[in-house]
Each structure stands twice: as structure tokens, then as C-alpha cells.
């Protein structure tokens, strides 16, 4: 560093001249540089924002279409199918046996989907391999009872208006992590408008902090 110092002191006039000559050249070069910069910036930004999510997520169709709205209107509420067990644990997506409580006769409706259900699963006594949009990773302990019973929350707060859907949207899976896209949220920037748009840990922590005054200790939500 000190060498530069010396040089700068000794050769100030010389370098000043060089500098002015250089600047004119610089301008043109810089202009071109800026154009390239903008082109590359825009191209990369767009590919990182639009193309990247397409590559990151794989799309999987559900085994057959499921009409939540229809089932809710028949059953009346969510709890008929998604209930708490006697021990307080949550059943999640119902097992075939629960479906058969209503679908006990061959066919109830006449849709193609129900035909698939009966042929592929009911008659073969096979569980339906649903893709779960809101599946949390194994490291997460989530108690539905704590939220719905003790916390008095409704399903919509976290799951949105899925009960009103008439068809199953494709399940999108992160190719790297295996997570459902619903965890990070549809928006690749992670921006959310509704409480159910994203299900990352920060979302849990924020609500916990607001509602209980503390985001909770590790084991409260992790196992």
C-alpha cells in the first residue's frame, strides 16, 4: 500500500493526464457495459423469478378429483371427516374406513371420480394415496387439538378455503426438499396476503408470539 502512496505522490501530473484521456474511453465502454449489465440483469432476474419455480417444483395430480364443497354440503362441517381421536390426536386425511361410513353402497354419485374411487380403492381395499398439501416435515410436531380446542381457531386460518373447492388442484412438490409448495407458499418471494398463504416456521412463530406472548420453546413444535 505504501508503494502506491509513493507513486501517487511522485507522479501526480502524469497520472492526471492519463486519467483524462482514459475517461473519454471509459464513457463509451461504460455505456456498453451498462447495456450489457441491464440485459443480463433482466434476463437473470426474470429466469430466477419465473423459470426457476417451474424447475424447482414437480407437479403431481391427485389419484382422482375430490370435491370438497360437495362433501362439506353433505357432511355439514370439516370435523366429520377430519376429526380428533379420543386421545386428542388428529386423524388427518380420513382412511378408507371413514369414507366407507357414507360410501357404503357401491356408488353414491355418478361422477367418473367416484367410479375410480370405488374401482381402484374400495373394491381393492386399498388406501387412497392422497398428496397432502399441508404436510409438514417429520421434525414438526403439530397439535390440532391445541389449536382448535385450546386455541379456538378455525380450519380456515391455516388451511384457507379448501372446503369450498370443487376440484383438487395439482400437488406441487419441491424437488430438492420434498416439501409441498404450500409450505413456502405459491409466491416465490415468500410474500403472503392471507394467513394461510404460507406455512413456514416463521408463520407459526409470529402467530404464537401474537397470541401467547411467546413464540414457544423448541419442543413445543418440534419432535
Amino acid at each position, binding site marked *: *500500500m*505504501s*508503494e*502506491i*502512496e509513493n507513486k*501517487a505522490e511522485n507522479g501526480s501530473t502524469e*497520472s492526471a493526464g*492519463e*486519467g483524462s484521456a*482514459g475517461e473519454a474511453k*471509459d464513457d463509451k465502454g461504460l455505456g456498453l457495459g451498462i447495456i450489457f449489465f441491464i440485459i443480463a440483469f433482466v434476463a437473470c432476474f426474470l429466469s430466477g423469478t419465473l423459470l426457476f419455480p417451474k424447475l424447482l417444483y414437480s407437479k403431481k395430480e391427485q389419484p382422482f378429483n375430490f370435491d370438497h364443497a360437495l362433501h362439506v354440503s353433505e357432511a355439514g362441517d370439516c370435523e366429520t371427516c377430519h376429526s380428533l381421536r379420543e386421545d386428542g390426536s388428529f386423524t388427518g386425511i380420513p382412511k378408507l374406513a371413514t369414507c366407507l361410513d357414507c360410501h357404503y353402497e357401491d356408488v353414491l354419485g355418478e361422477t367418473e371420480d367416484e367410479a375410480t374411487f370405488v374401482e381402484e380403492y374400495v373394491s381393492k381395499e386399498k388406501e387412497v394415496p392422497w398428496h397432502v398439501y399441508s404436510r409438514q416435515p417429520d421434525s414438526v410436531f403439530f397439535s390440532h387439538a391445541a389449536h382448535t380446542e385450546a386455541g379456538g381457531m378455525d380450519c380456515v386460518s391455516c388451511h384457507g378455503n379448501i372446503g369450498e373447492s370443487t376440484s383438487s388442484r395439482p400437488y406441487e412438490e419441491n424437488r430438492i426438499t420434498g416439501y409441498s409448495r404450500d409450505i413456502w407458499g405459491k409466491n416465490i418471494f415468500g410474500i403472503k396476503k392471507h394467513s394461510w398463504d404460507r406455512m413456514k416456521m416463521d408463520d407459526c412463530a409470529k402467530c404464537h408470539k401474537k397470541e401467547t406472548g411467546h413464540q414457544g420453546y423448541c419442543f413445543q413444535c418440534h419432535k
Partner: protein
Amino acid sequence: MDSALIPEGAKRCPLPKFSIGIAIVSAVLLWGVYAMFLCWFKGLNQTNMNDYYGFALWIWADLAVIAVGGGAFFTGLLKYIFKIDELKNIINFAVIIGFICYSSALLILAIDIGQPLRGWFIFWHANVHSMLTEVAFCLSAYFAVLTIEFIPNILENRQANKVPFFHHLAHNMHGVMAIFAATGAFLSFFHQGSLGGVAGVMYGRPFAVREGLLVWPWTFFLFTWSAAAYGPCFTLLVTKTTEAITGKKLVKDNVIHLLAKISGWMIVTYIIAKIIDTAYWAMVTAPSLGFNLSHFYTDNSFYGYWMLITEIVICGVVPGAILITKSTRENPKLRLVAIILGTIGVCLNRWVMVLQIMAVPVMSFDTWALYIPSWQEIATTVLPVAYGVILIAFAYRYLPVFPQEQELNQVKPVTE
């Protein structure tokens, strides 16, 4: 062949000879890289660490390179803040050594953690109470500072300097270097200190725990101080080694003497503090927890009082005494002995503060745990050394590192 890159007026060995030397060191480097990948892909079962030795050779190496790399911040502090101008003749080299040490430390940490891809959690989910968090933040920030400090020197390369932008950049960066030096000193104070704090706050480990000031145990201050004291020893040692290898005098004696003198006084003051700390710990802290001093130095086949004596007397008091006395300081042989002892002393201190802590039994029915590193650990620890040698070789060959080189080695400018 590469003469266009070599600093003006400097004489360097022929490229083939240089290449052979680099190739040999690179082989060692590759061995280390191989071991590094083994650790990353197969996991830390490649090491001989275990649940007793969660911290072992690597953490020692980390602490040691950061301690000896302390020459960079301390020399910078002296040069830019305390305006000791002679040190401009060694500051470049001090910065390079610092850069090597800190980049090595970061690399070792990246190997050492069980989940390297989650390493950034230390920033994202930082726990402000943890000394390690403080280490991570200050270490990374200071590494950035060192990089900034190193850049002007790189831009001074003959070819790079021809580019006006680089020339001006280097010049302007230089103008603000005092700010970086101050920042570096501030950051170093904290990360050197918090590395000391890592041990001092372990109140479950009577061998490590120290009382202190506010949230900082005494080891916090001792580590900073010892890095400042012994860091310059290492700078001088590497300078001496470089001189020996190149066969050239690179820094004038008055500069060396000055840095040695400062280091000497720092060592003396440090070692007094260290002795007081050790005595207080041995006579008050440890006994209050039910431990005699002898508990930490007997009943095992390696850790004995010799360790304590070597660290404090042979590698502390002795080099301190040599370096503060004009006659011995200016005797090249004795000075060399002192800087070697000093470097060993600080490394030994870091060993004690990492490995002996893990070795000492705490529960009355537990036993001493001894440890021998695996070859993978050794290879990855040698890796930074090889990398350092290569970086110094390149820096020396292509950058004007030593401002006094030309003056001290009057040769005709290279003509081709």
C-alpha cells in the same frame, strides 16, 4: 515467462523452479482437499472425535490460526491508529498472513460443523448469548475487512495496476485504510475475545470456567491480549522464514526490532495477567467448586504440570524477557528463539483451552479422556498450511509485498 507479472525491479526465481515448488505443496493441499471431501460426504465419523471430544484438533487449529493471525489487526492498529509509521514496511505481509489465517479458520469451521449446508443458521437464527455467535459474526466481518485490506496490494500487481480503474481504486482504498484498520481492530477485539469466552463461559467445566467482567469471562480479555502479543511473533516468524527461503533480506532490522519490542512488552504484560488469572483460578475458582489444581494435571498419561510450565514460563516469560531486552532482542538467534517460543506458547495455550478442557473428568466417577486425531483430521489441518504457503508464494512473486525489498536487494532492473 511470467516476468510481466513480477513486480518491477524485483528478482524472482525461474518459473519452472517456482512451479515445482508449488506442485509439491499442492500435492499436500490435494491430500487435505481429499480428506475434506471425505468429511463432507461421509460425515464426521471420519474423525477421531467423539462425544467427549466434540471440540478437538480442528477447533484448536482454528483458535491457533486466529491467534497467530492476530498480527494483522495489531500491526494495523499500531500503524494506522497509533501512527507507528515504520510498520508500513511489514503491514502488507501482516495483512496477507492475517488473510490466510482467517480464510483458513473459516474453511476449517465449514468442515468441522456436522451440517455445513446449515452453517448459515448461525447468522439467521443467531443466539446473542452464545460466544460462538459473536465469533461467527466478528470473524466473518473481519475476514471481509482483511479482504478489503488485501485488495489494494493485489491491485498493485504490475499488470493490474496498469488499469486506471484499479490504480485509482487501490489508491482511494488506501486513503480510507485507517477506517478499516480501526474496524478490524474493533472486530478482532471481539472475536479474539469471544473465542476466549467460548471456554470461559462453560461453567459446567471447572477447568475452563473463569469469572470476569460483565458478560465476559477473563479468558475473553486474555485471548485478545495474547493474540495481539503473540500475533506479531508469528508475523516475524513467517517473515524470517520467507527471508530464509528467498535468501533475501526483505524488511529492515529497525522495523523488525520495533515490532519485536512491542510484541515483547505485550507478552510480558499478558503473561503477568495470565499468571494472576491462573493463580486466582487455581486458588479460588476451582477450589470453590471442589477441585484441587492437581486434579487437572495428574492421573493421566499426557496432561501434566509440564504443560502449564511450558505454556507460561518457557513459552511466555522467556520470550517476553528476550524481546523486551535490547541486547537479546537484537541478537538474531535469540530473537528467533523468542518468536518461535512465542508462537508455540500461544498455540499451546489454545490447545489447553480446547483439548485439555475436554480431557479433564468433571464427574467424580468419570475418567480422563485422551484423543489422537485421525489422518483425515490431520490432513484437513495441514490443508490450510499448504494453502498459506502457496498464497504467500504467489503474493511474494507477483505482488509488491515488501516495500523495502528493492532497497535492501540492490540489483539491476530485470531486462528482457
